[in-house]
């Protein structure tokens, strides 16, 4: 039992299988929303699932000049990095499956793994488009990574802990940390667009100029794993922001004391799912409203207009805490 439960958590729920299934659903919501914004009908609900099965059932090709091992392993690194971080994010209760001091740092770094894997996969594809895309992935990382990190540290300082579970539990009194760190929240949302490489920051993929960037040479199941990694990253990124700023599974006005434990868990899960969908709604809105910008515009704009507000918010929080604490 001691072995089976963690294995179940990692591989089935809330780990791999659940994340993939929920990710497929959310990617349908995303595509349907964009279709609605464009006044069209959009795909049917099973569309992402059909895409996945079709990609799995396609022939596998590894280009002759590509590095075989790197080409095969890069998508797995991205997927594993994303799925692993779900274990440390609170989902149905204010405490995650596993919490330790500093798991915020671990999760933020696990979430950078897809970008590095994308770089490696693109670079070792030995393809002109993939090479350009790979360098763009890293350049874009310079832009969004630091503001995202800073924005995540805002609520951490406010709650006085580097543990996501502690930060979420600090919001159980109903005072969500978005009230203490509104600038950090805005920065985190915009940096998340960059992290997920979505419009307007889809510079590394840029279908209209460098085909699809780093994944040009990927076909079949390897492309399917890339897609799974990206859509689970959407979920995990949104869940992380929800846990840090929006109280995770907590919702005002719900009588948590009166509920049995299992009902609390279900309600918490539903509340978190709604929060994730709201964040995805914002992502779709941004995708429908904006166009792609250039890479050096993106890096400079992000460091300036995301970095400085996040720093200011952090400074204000630290100062207030010092005043209150003294």
């Amino acid at each position, binding site marked *: 039992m*001691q072995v089976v439960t*963690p*294995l179940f958590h*990692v*591989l089935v729920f809330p*780990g*791999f299988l659940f994340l993939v299934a929920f990710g497929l659903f959310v990617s349908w919501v995303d595509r349907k929303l964009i279709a609605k914004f464009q006044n069209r009908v959009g795909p049917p609900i099973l569309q992402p699932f059909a895409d996945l099965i079709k*990609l799995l*059932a*396609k*022939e*596998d*090709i590894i*280009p*002759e*000049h590509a590095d075989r091992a790197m080409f095969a392993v890069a*998508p*797995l690194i991205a*997927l594993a990095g994303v*799925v*692993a971080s779900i*274990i440390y994010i609170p989902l149905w209760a204010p405490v995650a*499956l596993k919490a330790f001091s*500093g798991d*915020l*740092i*671990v999760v933020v770094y*696990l979430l950078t793994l897809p970008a590095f894997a994308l770089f490696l996969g693109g670079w070792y594809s*030995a*393809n*002109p*488009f993939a*090479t350009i895309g790979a360098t763009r992935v*890293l*350049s874009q990382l*310079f*832009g969004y*990574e*630091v503001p995202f*990190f800073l924005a995540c*540290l805002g609520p951490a*300082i406010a709650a006085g802990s*580097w543990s996501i579970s502690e930060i979420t539990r600090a919001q159980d009194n109903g005072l969500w940390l978005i009230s203490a760190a509104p600038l950090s929240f805005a920065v985190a949302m915009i940096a998340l667009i960059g992290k997920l490489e979505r419009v307007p920051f889809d510079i590394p993929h840029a279908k209209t100029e460098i085909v699809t960037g780093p994944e040009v040479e990927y076909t*079949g*199941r*390897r492309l399917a*794993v890339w897609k*799974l990694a990206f859509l689970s990253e959407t979920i995990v990124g949104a869940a992380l922001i929800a846990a840090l700023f929006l109280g995770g599974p907590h919702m005002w006005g719900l009588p948590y004391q009166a509920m049995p434990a299992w009902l609390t868990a279900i309600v918490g899960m539903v509340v978190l799912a709604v929060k994730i969908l709201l964040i995805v709604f914002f992502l779709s809105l941004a995708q429908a409203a904006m166009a792609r910008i250039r*890479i*050096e515009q993106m*890096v*400079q704009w992000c*460091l300036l207009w995301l*970095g*400085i507000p996040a*720093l200011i918010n*952090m*400074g204000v929080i*630290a100062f207030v*805490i010092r005043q209150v604490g003294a």
Partner: protein
Amino acid sequence: MTASAVLYHPVVVFTLCMMAGWGVYALGRALAPASRVIGGKLKTYACGENVEGESFPTAYHLYHAAFIFTLLDVVALVLGTVTGTAIVWMVAAYLLVGLIAIVILFKD
């Protein structure tokens, strides 16, 4: 150290997830038709051009962003691993370093 403490360790979770991803590969291998290499199937895709044996140099001009990223990220990591009462002073120092870095970036 209990079994659950070992199994929830980030490295172990990461390895398990890698194996799950490999399971997706295995499923795909079971579903997909056998690969037939015909003609230039394995050649590098370059819009149909033949780019046999060429290297693709990339001109890179964002070194200053890379420099500042490294600076800030290392400082953030140091900050993240420090706990206790020193935290506020660390934040102040961090803010200073970050602001200096951004000023360097945009001074021209």
